[in-house]
């Protein structure tokens, strides 16, 4: 899952990037409104954390422009202005959730997980595919009840596929959504990680669709 953080306070920006990276997301960051707008407009993020008070271009305008150009990415806005009129203004501009400063990083992470689940159409915090079960809250994967140990890259890959189960996900999409913008996109690491995953969970769960990409069959389809 690829996340963009737009926050002008360098310390808070660093903390947000750190916490989100630790939680297993590929994170890009911007320190001002213009850069943030550009990144959000051009890169395919799965979630954007957007501060409202930004230099060069304020958060509300950025959000409105994204929504006007039909970007549907979930956006959580951050702001010190915690009046309800500000919150309503943010939501009406197109934000999906709202977090007032100062906030607990755990809360931000919980809301981020909720938005990612919601965007993928899952209401519950657990996603199941056959015997494989992903708990998005604790970032744990079990197979038939047994915990499975995954590296951070393996986890990201599996989590993305499970969030979009039932849909063919291309290799390009995986690269775009799993790694931040500095990642070397020519490498064939995706195939390497798919191979490793197939050894840790039942291999038939991840289906290779030739020429198109990979798919995890949704529970309902499997039945």
């Amino acid at each position, binding site marked *: 899952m690829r996340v963009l953080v737009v926050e002008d306070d360098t310390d*808070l920006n660093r903390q947000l990037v750190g916490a989100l990276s630790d939680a297993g997301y590929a994170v890009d960051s911007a320190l001002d409104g213009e850069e943030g707008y550009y990144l959000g407009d051009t890169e395919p993020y799965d979630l954007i954390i957007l501060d409202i*008070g930004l230099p060069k271009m304020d958060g509300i305008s950025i959000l409105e422009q994204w929504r006007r150009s039909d970007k549907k990415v979930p956006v959580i806005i951050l702001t010190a*202005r915690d009046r309800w009129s500000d919150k309503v203004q943010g939501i009406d501009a197109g934000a999906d959730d709202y977090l007032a*400063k100062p906030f607990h990083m755990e809360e931000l992470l919980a809301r981020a997980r909720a938005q990612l689940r919601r965007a993928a159409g899952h209401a519950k915090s657990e996603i199941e595919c056959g015997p494989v079960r992903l708990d998005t809250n604790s970032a744990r994967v079990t197979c038939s009840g047994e915990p499975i140990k995954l590296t951070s890259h393996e986890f990201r890959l599996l989590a993305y596929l499970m969030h979009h189960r039932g849909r063919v996900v291309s290799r390009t999409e995986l690269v775009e959504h799993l790694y931040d913008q500095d990642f070397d996109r020519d490498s064939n690491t995706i195939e390497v990680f798919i191979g490793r995953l197939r050894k840790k969970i039942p291999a038939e769960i991840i289906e290779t669709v030739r020429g198109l990409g990979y798919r995890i069959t949704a529970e309902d389809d499997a039945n």
Partner: protein
Amino acid sequence: MRIDSIAFRLIVASMAWVLLVLPLAGFLIYALYREDVQKSFDAQLEKLVTAITIDSMQPVDNTPAAPTNRYEPLFEVTHSGWYWQIEPLDGQSTPTLRSASLATASLPSPMALGYPPDPETNMRWRNDVGPDGKPVRIVEVIDRLGHASDGPRYSIVVAGPSEWLEFSVSTFRNRLTAALAVAGAALLALMLFQVRFGLAPLKRVEEALAEIRSGKATRLEGGVPAEIEPLRDELNALIQSNEDIIERARTQVGNLAHGLKTPLAVITNEARESKGPLGTKVIEQAKVMTDQVQHYLERARMAARVGVIGRVTPLKEVVDPLVRALEKINSGKGVKIVVNCPPDAAFQGEKQDLEEMLGNLLDNACKWSKARVTLDVEQKKPATATGRKRLKIIVADDGPGLTKDQRARIGRRGLRLDETKPGTGLGLSIAIDLAQSYRGSLNLDQSKMGGLKAILDLPAA
């Protein structure tokens, strides 16, 4: 009517001139009339004395002829008030002639009594009492009755009843007084009307001000008289500057919030990373600072509101955006907010404050609810005739609710009953503070759906 009012001043001033001018005019008219009546009476007497003089000219035998009474039949009636007398002067022995009305009485000659002649007509005038005991006006002509210029002279005296004169004048005076009194009363009534009519725009201004005070209007609008226009403009400018000051205060408070909260977020996050006693202490103190900032920001916002000219906030204006926003935030959970609000319901107060109260209550309800939150608004008639309408706003959810004991403790600043759900623990206490600042209240109860029911009582507009 108050003594220090403009109406009182105008009425007193106009009363003063009515009371001064009307009697003066009355006196003048009376004097003119009296003079006029006197003159015409005198003219009549003059005519009679001339006629009698001519009538009695008998130059042949030195004896004046008795004049005929064809000019005034009342000369024949005893004590009628109309008399004449022809008295020979210069020691003549001829008898004095008198009108029948005089009977045995005689008319004293003004010349004999020393009255000077009128230089123009050579007649002498005096007022006296006649033989009948009533006032008479007497005129005397000294004439030789046709004799040569060295012949003997006669005193010809004619008297007429001046009682009639007095009567006519006093009747006129009474009528004049009555007419002037009626005119004065009519003038005063007109003046009262004029004052009311003239000051009516002030009354309208007063009503417009009351509307502003009660929040039904924000500016003094509409046509006012030219004299009040500067006052209206100044007043509108004052209201505007008042609003600007409040807006500035709010903006500054917001800026302060932004300035403090980001560093606090950074400190807290940093401290969470570093394990150990220092980190714990920093987290603890940062929490205290956060609460303090929040607390004083709220106070500053409330203080900025004190003295604001009253506002009216239609409930729809606040409820609709809040419901839209909260349903979107909670769309993952699929919470539905059912609103039951009369379209004309309005809150007597600031929009932002209502937003805070309702936002916090609805947010809380959404956070705990399973699927359904209800918002019911009722308008309550005042309990007394002078009382104001109240609003009863009920927010209920179908969540787990609170026990009686928990409900009693909630609302204490920063107290969070369940640390597992996010929040500052300030939401309800902010709503309570705000409700109290409007002399309203927030009470908690058990809802029929099983969850919490918050009942907000606020002034309606």
